[in-house]
């Protein structure tokens, strides 16, 4: 089991990198009034078809060839954590277009792991120069945005925000 939610984020994010994603968007929303913590990891990788998706959620699965015994616990771990903490877990995926993983949990649930060192998670995911990593964090009324492409190309962040679909999810909060 992973002890911090940021480790779960790293784990799911690594799946996205393995799926050949060029853009990876991580959304974390904490709402103390409604007592929700929502984590969404969205990528534009190769996605999964319905069969694979069912397998991923039904049992532990890996995409590695030649392995008879299925391994790959990442999604199952996160699902276990969110369901244990009174939340829900969804994966949406379209082959060729990408995958979106959403996990929610009760912020005040006694079993909810701490968010932990989110910075180190993002830094680790930024190790791949071909992938643009974005983080949108919102805690009640405070927000924080990060984009790994920002420092490199000096693009104004506004453009990237309008390009991404991040605005939709922040409104949902």
């Amino acid at each position, binding site marked *: *089991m*992973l002890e911090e939610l940021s*480790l779960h984020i*790293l*784990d799911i994010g*690594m799946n996205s*990198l*393995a799926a050949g994603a060029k853009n990876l968007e991580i959304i*974390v929303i*904490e709402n103390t009034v409604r007592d929700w913590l929502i984590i969404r990891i969205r990528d534009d990788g190769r996605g999964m078809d319905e069969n694979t998706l069912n397998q991923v959620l039904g049992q532990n699965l*890996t995409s*590695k060839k030649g392995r008879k015994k299925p*391994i*790959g*616990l*990442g999604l199952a*771990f996160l699902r276990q954590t969110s369901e244990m903490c009174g939340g829900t877990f969804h994966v949406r995926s379209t082959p060729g277009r990408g995958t979106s993983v959403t996990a929610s949990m009760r912020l005040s649930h006694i079993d909810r792991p701490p*968010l932990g*060192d*989110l*910075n*180190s*998670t*993002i*830094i*680790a*995911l*930024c*190790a*791949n*120069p071909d992938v643009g990593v974005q*983080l949108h*964090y919102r*805690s009640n009324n*405070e927000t*924080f945005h*990060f984009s*790994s492409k*920002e*420092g*490199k190309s000096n693009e104004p962040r506004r453009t990237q925000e309008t390009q991404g679909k991040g605005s939709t999810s922040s409104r949902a909060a």
Partner: protein
Amino acid sequence: MNLDELKKLKEKAQRQVALREGNKKYRVVFSMGTSGIAAGAREVMTSMLDELDKRGIENVEVAVTGEIGLVDAEPVIRIEEKSGEKVTYAKVNPEGARKIVAEHLQKGKVVDGLAVGKIKESEQKK
């Protein structure tokens, strides 16, 4: 989550960007699959980045990879030299990572206690 903590991310990420550009003497690959993460690979990476920064070492490229199949030996890191020599370190903890920076990446000496596999250029060609 502390918002002030997150604000340091931008600065840290810029340093990381400098570390991922290729054509350096060493390339350090972290196994960052589920087993590696559960065993503490992220903390090992954090301490290595910190030590590289402290010592001002710049000829190192840092990368991550998925599961590599050495589940019981995690956290695993592999150091690839430009010459083709590869060294794999297993069960690395944050202190071990600092030692690897000091010995291997700075002085070019393999840390014997932690290394599990070493491929020399000559053996690879066979």
